[in-house]
């Protein structure tokens, strides 16, 4: 741990400012609270929003887990962990259940989160209406008036064009029946995990300078139509080639000989299953 740098990198004033914005975000579920996003030693777009949330609320006794695209050991997850541990000295864990604070890019872990845990999601584009309205000034107004026709129309147009809603990750949700919110580009598979989550979910967009939140036990509903219901990605008939798990989010792996197999995207979940199998 570097003695010349303040605990968790920031000065206490900066942490307090970020926490104030976070508290406001918790008080207004799904509302994007502007904050004075700091310039960080890692690049904008590489998780600075999530990192600022993590650093502003981390405590010495925390157990931290960082995942990127489902993996604890991918280079960006390692890089973020290195920065956090070198300025805090906190315990790192891969175990979802053991973690008190989880920073993640684009996934919610397979193991259900529990009360007392905080999940921090990194967000590139916090504005769910950005694809239909480029102006921030106008989208702010649309949120204030709960005028969300644009989001519905986007989905409706996809049905007209493709016969179904064709969103990939980042399928818009409505939080606490009020704000339409970008769940960050988690796959649709993870959207239902946000609904009435026992853990606090914080979302941070560093470049766009926004913080928003889903407090525990808050309703989060993916936008859909009565006759065109929301549908998550499906991996029907496929299972993990390592641990045999079904009904989890799978990575498609192309082998050199041209065969395709599947693996759990959540690497620590997969590892725990294999270890447990070995113990039995």
């Amino acid at each position, binding site marked *: 741990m570097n003695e010349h740098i303040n605990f968790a990198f920031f000065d206490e004033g900066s942490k307090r400012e970020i926490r104030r914005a976070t508290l406001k975000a918790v008080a207004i579920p799904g509302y994007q609270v502007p904050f004075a996003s700091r*310039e960080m*030693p890692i690049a904008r777009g590489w998780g600075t929003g999530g990192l600022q949330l993590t650093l502003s609320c981390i405590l010495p006794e925390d157990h931290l887990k960082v995942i990127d695209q489902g993996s604890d050991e991918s280079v960006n997850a390692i890089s973020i962990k290195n920065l956090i541990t070198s300025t805090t000295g906190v315990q790192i864990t891969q175990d979802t259940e053991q973690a008190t604070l989880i920073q993640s890019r684009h996934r919610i872990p397979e193991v259900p989160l529990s009360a007392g845990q905080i999940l921090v999601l990194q967000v590139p584009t916090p504005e769910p209406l950005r694809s239909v309205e480029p102006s921030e000034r106008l989208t702010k107004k649309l949120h204030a008036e709960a005028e969300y026709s644009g989001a519905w129309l986007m989905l409706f147009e996809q049905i007209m064009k493709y016969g179904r809603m064709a969103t990939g990750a980042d399928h818009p949700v409505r939080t606490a029946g009020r704000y339409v919110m970008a769940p960050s580009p988690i*796959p649709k598979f993870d959207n239902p995990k946000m609904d009435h989550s026992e853990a606090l979910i914080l979302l941070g967009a560093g470049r766009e300078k926004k913080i928003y939140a889903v407090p525990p036990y808050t309703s989060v509903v993916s936008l859909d139509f009565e006759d065109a219901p929301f549908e998550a*990605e499906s991996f029907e008939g496929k299972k993990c080639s390592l641990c045999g798990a079904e009904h989890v989010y799978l990575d498609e792996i192309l082998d050199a000989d041209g065969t395709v197999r599947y693996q759990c995207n959540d690497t620590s979940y997969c590892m725990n299953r294999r270890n447990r199998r070995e113990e039995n």
Partner: protein
Amino acid sequence: MAYVAVKGGKIAIEQSILRLKQERLRSGKAASVKTIENSMRLLVDQVMSEGSIYCPSLAALAIKQAEGSMEEAIFLLRAYRSTLPRRYYSTTVESADMQIERRISAAFKDIPGGQILGTSYDYTHRLLDFDLLEESDEQIQKILQQFKEADTDTIIAPESMQMPKVTDYLRSQGFIDPIEPDDSEPKDATKETLTFPCPRSMRLQILTRGMTQAVTALGYASLRGYGVAHPTVCELRVGRLPITIADPANGDDEENEYVIGEIKVTEVESLIPVTRRTEDGRKQISFEIGYGIAAGQNETKAIAMSILDQCLMHPESSFATSDEEFVLYHVDSIEATGFISHLKLPHYVTFQAKLNSARKVREEKA
């Protein structure tokens, strides 16, 4: 034996960082920070301007560490800057107090105080000087000696080079609409989120920290056709401005301000003709001023900034260069390079989601 995570990422990062060091030092020689600071004046100026911190030695260090990459050097300075406590704001700086090193007007042939060409590449012919391939320390000393013997003060202007602003003349003639002085506290984009419409103080701050090439490109777009008017550079000046702070114990005491140093800046005031209606309904031509300022000698950027400043005062115009969000959201180096470069991060979860969607659509159609 229990399964453990593959630790490839950690080793890969360590090796990658080692390779960087190796690349930087492979020739067996590295330019010293002093050499960079002394011999790459304009690069240092640009890095300070976009890095948003005035310190030539730190800018030179950043350039060295970043192997001359602008975006990396600026990134290093910005990340460093954000950890510094900000104890004071300076008192208002009057650019009429500038110790001028260079000053030109494209609007008037003769200006009070005169035109001073100063240090400029403008009239050099851009021919590679192959003599510089072999420039020895002895030669440098000899040239310096010649300067000394010629007793020129061509490089450093005399102490009292303060001059009136050229716009003052036009203002006194009534060509520039009188504007009420706005002494409201400037908004600081590094402490508050941008809101729209954006206060001018914040707008100017974002432009002056903006990427030199981005500000230049957008200014050029406006000048070439995606804008309304052709500006005239009323005055471009390069020189040193003293920076003072108020007495921390007694802020109102103007006698007791402290000079904390001086900074070199380039300042531009451009004139843009606009149509005004007089009280009796006749149309007449007035001029608006577009303002540009940049740390160091950074003339193209400062001129382009003055064009964009004026464009942004006219949101009613349909050009993208008059759209605050379009201009201000996209000229910052840290933000633009960060988001573009994040595309190098793995996206296999999101791509798998899109692929899943694409497959379902195809199955349905089949």
